[in-house]
């Protein structure tokens, strides 16, 4: 006889672990300029957190929690990356020329803000979109 399954432990662990994984992915995304990391691995970690949600719950619940159209996310990411490249043309510089400047921000202190972060944001969004599209398409097919 098949007993009813109970996912209480898995779901409780997932509720805590998802936040830790998302925080780690954001850290690894912003640390990419000076230490290992960057947009690609950060995006993979974020999608791994969403996959953990998919494993503990189901497609419908996760769609209710995160109502994101992942194909649109890919398009937005590509616009970010291309926009960063095109932006350089307005300043009489070649395509994809990046600029950076040091600012004294109130909370962070002496910080260098670089336009490569905007390019990396595009990479981040595209990686999340592509991974989640692949996995949801495979998961939905009966």
């Amino acid at each position, binding site marked *: 006889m098949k007993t009813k399954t109970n996912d209480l432990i898995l779901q409780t662990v997932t509720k805590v672990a998802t936040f830790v994984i998302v925080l780690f992915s954001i850290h690894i995304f912003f640390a990419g300029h000076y230490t290992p990391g960057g947009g690609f691995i950060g995006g993979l970690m974020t999608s791994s957190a969403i*996959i953990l949600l998919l494993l503990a719950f189901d497609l419908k619940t996760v769609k209710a929690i995160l109502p994101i159209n992942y194909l649109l996310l890919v398009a937005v990411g590509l616009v970010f990356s291309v926009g960063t490249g095109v932006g350089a043309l307005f300043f009489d510089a070649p395509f994809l020329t990046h600029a950076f400047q040091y600012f004294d921000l109130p909370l962070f202190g002496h910080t260098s803000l670089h336009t490569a972060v905007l390019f990396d944001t595009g990479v981040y969004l595209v990686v999340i979109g592509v991974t989640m599209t692949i996995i949801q398409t495979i998961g939905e097919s009966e």
Partner: protein
Amino acid sequence: MLNFMLQLALLCITISMGILVYRVIKGPSIPDRVVALDAIGTNLICMIAVLSILLDTSMFLEVILLIGILSFTGTVAFSKFLEKGEIIENERDL
């Protein structure tokens, strides 16, 4: 002295990973293999920690967390497949 101890630790981890590989190949049931693969992931984390002390760098510390997360997700996916037959359900029956 420390270098020798670290290399000894690496050797011990390698031996235990070899024994786990034996369990993955031989293991009579699939849950045996899944548990062995999870333990191999944990041993890999230990190996990277020892290696980052040996190479005197802190650049591998992200890899440790990364392998921990990936091995957890992989084991959960495997065990869900073994229990329910599908990894991602369309709608859970409560």
